[in-house]
């Protein structure tokens, strides 16, 4: 298994981490970015390769925006400020990428999840 490093720095009061994820041996490797501002919730982006709709045009499920996965349910307080990003946000993002790849292959999203009330673009 590869050890993939994350480089973190603080930029204008925000923790910005950039690194590569390859969640399982059979998945691709992704360059991702995680940002956390004190008092706020963590967000993550998949920078490369970019998330893509399926060839049939179906949009990518469970995202806040075109490159931004959504992998925790804020209302249920699944992320708490005392959690380490390395054992919460990053594994959640890794799992999300595994579900994304499966969805790309079969059209089925098997990662579960809570449907967002508003449709895409109406957040």
């Amino acid at each position, binding site marked *: 298994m590869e*050890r993939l490093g994350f480089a973190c720095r603080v930029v204008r009061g925000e923790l910005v981490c950039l690194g590569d994820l390859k969640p*399982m041996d059979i998945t691709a490797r992704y360059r991702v970015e995680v940002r956390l501002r004190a008092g706020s919730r963590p967000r993550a982006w998949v920078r490369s390769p970019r998330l893509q709709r399926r060839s049939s045009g179906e949009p990518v499920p469970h995202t806040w925006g075109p490159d931004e996965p959504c992998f925790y349910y804020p209302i*249920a307080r*699944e992320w708490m400020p005392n959690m380490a990003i390395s054992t919460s946000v990053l594994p959640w*993002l890794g799992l999300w990428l595994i579900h994304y790849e499966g969805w790309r292959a*079969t059209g089925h999203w098997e990662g579960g999840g809570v449907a*967002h009330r508003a449709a895409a673009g109406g957040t």
Partner: protein
Amino acid sequence: MHPRFDRLSTRVGALDFLLAEIVLALQLTNTQVARMESAYRALAAWLEHPDSPLAAYGPILVYPQGSAAIGTTVRPLLRAEFDLDFVIEVAFFPGTPMELYELVVERLQQHRTYAKMLERKRRCVRILYEDGFHADALGSRTAVGVLIPGSIEVPDRETPTLWKGSNPRGFAQWFIARSREATEARFLAKAQPLPSDWAAEAKTVLQRIVQLAKRGRDVAFGDRAAAPRSIVLTTLEATVYRGELSVYEALVEVLDVVASMIEQARPYRLVVLNPMNAEEDFSESWDDPTAYSAFTAWLFRFRREVHALRNIEGIEELTKALGLLFGEDVSKQATHRYQKALAAARSANEVRSLGPAIITTGGGGHPIPRNHNYGAEY
């Protein structure tokens, strides 16, 4: 750690799971199996009945041969029909081979329904059912003066005065004995039965790699006559199999060994004899160099593509590569089942993280806190 999940996150564990699911998707459906069994029972009962003209020649044995006998059937690729091969063996027959052949035909013609369904083949009599299913009946006599159990003599319309030697029961026993090695080793190592959905309903690794090779052949050759015979693929694989427990590694290993045997045999061809009856060259069609080179070209390509599965990155790309080998539908279905297996592992808290976001199902590392994917769709 539940044995079903622990290897899912590894490359070979995922491949083993996907290949086993592909095999499951290629097996005859329950409907097809029931159809086959009911047709077979009716035919057997008719042929071995005391009123049958065959009954004069001693106790009659009726038994399946071929893939149905050894558990390596795969659904046909392009044909709607599937088939069952079986043997009718009489204890003695003093007449000529063609007389025995015609006696089987005669008995089938005595049945009002079967009489309209018959087609003479080279050695068998084919009974064609309306829905496309067909049963091939091979009339035979117990081999005279041969002490190997299961040896029979069969007619051949291309050489009508000669009895041809064969031993389908011996072959089935040989194959099953070869396939049992890995199963026994696996049971010994784990001291428990494999859960059915992981073990593709208790099929052994050897059966599975035979099914995968047959399917790979079907996808590559379609209906073309140059396709290597199933009996040849089956015998080759069973001969070189070393009891490897992983379906993927076993397939790689068997293909590597066959490839090297082909190279070492040059400029001659491989000869694949019936392991139970050295008189029978299963591979005699390879006397035609065109047929042989079609086989070797396919074998080398198939081997290369199976090897490549080890390095493909991306579940979508892996699914596509499996689709090119074994068919798109069965590969997507296998991947979908894999997704569900991972989801089940997650629900069972058997998915953990090792280091910065490497996901494992094999234990160790850190538990992953509960989460729900949310958000919209872009």
